[in-house]
């Protein structure tokens, strides 16, 4: 079935694995939060799993990702271990950020997850800088900036896209358009009605894609990644999707018309991909349940690891504020006194 324009089965299976991993983590995090095992502010990515899963199969660990508070799907898809995230969510010293950052600031450089931010719009300017570093260093790395539809109305969006075009940076702007920004509907607050359309005036291609369609998303991402790696500059991808939960855990999403939500949930993109694999790629149910069982174990272990880990001690307040004291440069070696 594989063709140049079609991911082969193994790739689709890997996309599914990542999406299912996100879905399972989400399920268990919500359960752990609801049961009081963990106390955290949580922004569920349920419904948006396919976007980073289909994108990240084109990326290596060296490629950079910046994401937002609603970012666990981006982090997991990029390879951040579940247990590092769980332990951070639980506020433990074994978390990716020693518990200092928390859910909104997951960082994991070994997998290229450099910044998770809580300020709308701020993933974009920083992703530019990561791409700039790669460009100047002459390495093949690219950078991905994830953000929401609501972020397309904040100033940093325009500044970032313009600069990326002017410098032809190897960066991809991925707008995960879930049609809501907190309680605000996309159409009501986004003039022009399209994020992708804003790209042209900022000198780069803008593509709208069904982000819940693994194949379509894989294709669009592949092209953007190729452009970036070839030094042809940035791309804006507007990946259409939908948020199954409220803005954050505890939000009942009453502002979303019930019909709209039901329709979206019925087309659950993770289940859709699962069915697609069985129907069109001859993948056996057993293969999938095997993958799912492994995921179940990983997530269970992550939870156990997190909840049995130690809390940080108060002295952690004083470290990582500045560089630890140490020797500093006192003389340049190349410009000696004359």
């Amino acid at each position: 079935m594989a063709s140049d324009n079609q991911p082969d089965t193994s790739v689709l299976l890997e996309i599914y694995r990542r999406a299912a991993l996100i879905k399972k983590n989400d399920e268990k995090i919500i359960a752990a939060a609801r049961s009081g095992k963990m106390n955290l502010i949580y922004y569920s990515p349920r419904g948006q799993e396919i976007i980073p899963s289909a994108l990240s199969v084109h990326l290596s660990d060296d490629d950079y990702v910046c994401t937002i508070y609603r970012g666990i799907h981006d982090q997991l898809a990029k390879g951040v271990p579940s247990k590092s995230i769980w332990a951070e969510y639980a506020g433990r010293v074994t978390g990716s950020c020693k518990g200092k950052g928390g859910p909104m600031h997951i960082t994991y450089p070994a997998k290229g997850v450099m910044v998770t931010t809580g300020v709308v719009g701020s993933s974009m300017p920083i992703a530019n800088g990561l791409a700039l570093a790669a460009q100047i260093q002459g390495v093949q790395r690219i950078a991905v900036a994830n953000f929401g539809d609501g972020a397309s109305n904040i100033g940093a969006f325009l500044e970032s896209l313009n600069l990326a075009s002017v410098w032809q940076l190897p960066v991809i702007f991925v707008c995960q358009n879930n049609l809501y920004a907190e309680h605000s509907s996309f159409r009501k607050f986004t003039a022009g009605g399209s994020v992708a359309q804003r790209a042209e005036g900022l000198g780069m291609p803008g593509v709208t894609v069904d982000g819940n369609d693994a194949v379509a998303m894989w294709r669009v991402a592949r092209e953007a990644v190729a452009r970036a790696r070839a030094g042809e500059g940035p791309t804006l991808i507007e990946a259409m999707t939908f948020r199954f939960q409220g803005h954050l855990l505890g939000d009942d999403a009453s502002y979303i018309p019930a019909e709209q939500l039901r329709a979206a949930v019925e087309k659950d993109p993770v289940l859709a991909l699962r069915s697609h694999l069985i129907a069109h790629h001859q993948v056996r149910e057993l293969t999938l349940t095997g993958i799912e069982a492994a995921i179940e174990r990983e997530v269970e272990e992550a939870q156990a690891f997190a909840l049995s880990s130690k809390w940080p001690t108060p002295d952690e307040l004083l470290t990582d504020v500045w560089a630890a004291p140490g020797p500093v440069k006192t003389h340049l070696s190349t410009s000696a006194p004359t």
Partner: protein
Amino acid sequence: MSAKPATVNAMQAINLALHDAMKEDDSVIVFGEDLADPEGGGVLGVTKGLSSTFGDSRVRSTPISEQAIIGAGIGAALGGLRPVTEIMLMNFAAVAMDMITNHAAKLRFMSGGQTHVPMTIRTMTGAGAGNGGQHSDYLEAWFAHTAGIKVVTYSSPAEAYGLLLSAIFDEDPVIFIENLTTYFVTGPAPTRGALIPLGKANVLRRGTDISLISYGFMVNHAWAAAVELEKEGVSAEVIDLRTVAPYDAETILDSVGRTGRVVIVHEAVRNFGVGAEIAAEIAEALHGRLKSAPRRVGGSFNAVPFSKPLETSHMPNPARILAAARSALGR
């Protein structure tokens, strides 16, 4: 809005103040992210009902555009209205810092008094709920250092009502700081229609041995420390600044002049905070009359951490205030 409940929380008090201000004066308008009723009347419901009552011309949800929000507030104020704008969380004021400090605060002076900006900026913040480094900061010192804008906050629901009304009807821009914890703490209902004047501190409790000066939710911690001190035979005066900038130097100097000892408390990080100005002013004005050095209690000097034990150690609490007070008292 009919029967007056015995107790309200700060959310209800603020909602009532906005309601009463809009009813009082057609020029009062309210806008910010998610705050009209179609968007749920605010993410926590603080502004619920306003757009239904006063219409969607005077009460508007906005895109996520803090510069445009504050800019629109400035322009609307120049155009004769009394906008109440909202920056959802205080950290996001950083995004609109140019509009607030280079414009709102300065237009009266730079225009030679021809224009002025009677805008209120409501914003909310506070550590303690695990919101982490970009959602919890108290940044009032930035604005206090900027001539032309006032900083106001409250320590009880009733004061939230009266102070917000004064902010709205003030002729200069005011940052009105709300606090997440206070949203869920109830207290006596405000006197309907009564404004609490800006620029005047509130002596919550008279005392003779030491002055505890604070503002916002931390006043409650100062109060708790004062109660504890009383058990130790120490009479502590507790002062709520209410208006953080420009603050009521007269009341403070009078108090510390009498007690000779002072602890200043705020949730913002201690270093270069509002407490520094107050301590410096006291040290200058009352040199030779202080029985011990002015002390300051504030957040530890780091981003607000997420992990519960760290967040707890980061924040001031009654025990730390007590410790500072005891040290000031030489115990």
